[in-house]
């Protein structure tokens, strides 16, 4: 490694302020005193400046962009309308009425259905099971197919 090797290592990693002379550091003092390192520092700073200018880019036409954005919005609205073809009000009314009728045809029979359907004649009643040590209360209901059987122990009273 040359005498400047250590300084070049620092030059490669340092913030530009540290070797540009903006602040007084050991590195900036060395760069001031060493023509080789000064040349390297100049190259690094020149490269930064060239990049800064190149990347900055030109001014932007703000008014043109705003106009384009408004046009894009208008085009999108127009495209959105095309996706949903316009339907005459009369057709909408007829479709709505038909929907209500269809719903009524489905819902009303459901509402009329009793909660407990009578037992089908094909279903045979299960035989009663003896419940030893239990008392029994038989409670008939209005539905002749339904009878409530309440088993209870003496101690529950």
């Amino acid at each position, binding site marked *: 490694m040359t005498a400047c090797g250590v300084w070049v290592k620092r030059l490669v990693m340092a913030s530009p302020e540290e070797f540009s002379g903006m602040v007084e550091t050991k590195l900036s003092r060395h760069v001031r005193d060493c023509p080789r390192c000064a040349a390297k520092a100049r190259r690094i700073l020149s*490269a930064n400046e060239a990049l800064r*200018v190149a990347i900055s880019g030109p001014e932007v036409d703000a008014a043109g962009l705003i106009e384009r954005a408004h046009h894009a919005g208008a085009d999108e609205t127009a495209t959105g309308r095309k996706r949903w073809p316009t339907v005459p009000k009369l057709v909408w009314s007829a479709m709505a009425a038909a929907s209500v009728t269809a719903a009524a045809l489905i819902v009303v029979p459901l509402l009329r259905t009793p909660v407990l359907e009578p037992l089908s004649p094909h279903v045979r009643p299960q035989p009663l099971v003896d419940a030893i040590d239990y008392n029994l209360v038989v409670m008939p209901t209005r539905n002749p197919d339904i009878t409530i059987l309440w088993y209870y122990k003496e101690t529950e009273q």
Partner: protein
Amino acid sequence: MAVEGRDPAFPGLAALGELADRARDGGDEALERLVSAAARVVRRWALVRLAHAADADDVMQEVMIRVIRSIETWPAGESFAPWLYVVTRNAATDRLRRGGRQRDVGGFDALLDQVPAPGGDPSLVFAGRELAGLVGALLRELPPRQREVFDLVELQGMTAKEVAQLIGIRASSVRGSLLKARRNLRRRILATWPDVEEDLP
């Protein structure tokens, strides 16, 4: 030679937020000022990420149209710059995923026309363009995160903390990426850009 500090061509992040607030509150002039400032920032972010001038222009237009159309509903108190950054980054990522334009057209080289002549000397114009081409090619070889951090800190003059808030990573990660970017870029610059003074005994 101009060195460091804030890049005067670019507003700070807080200034962008103030412009966004004014544009939201109404007024064509306020909106135009916001677009004028934000578009250059967005273009630069996209360019550094994509390393392609024409793609960066496309992304800038896409993002700015979105900004213009949503600024009226922009919630007060929200941080504008980080939102703008995320929108730009996502748009740039989409563009990369779609393949972008032909990579050999409109890359960093397209920027060279923008490098001005210092003092109007034609020989310096050539030197400036040649240099920008060389450094641009070297920059393109860095990973996107290193390019991004290098631009934000080294060229635009933001602090590591500001960059961390902007791009949503830790300040220590910003500093780490910056050191790697400096080392990679400067080593190559010093190796590939011969200097007459270097040959002095």
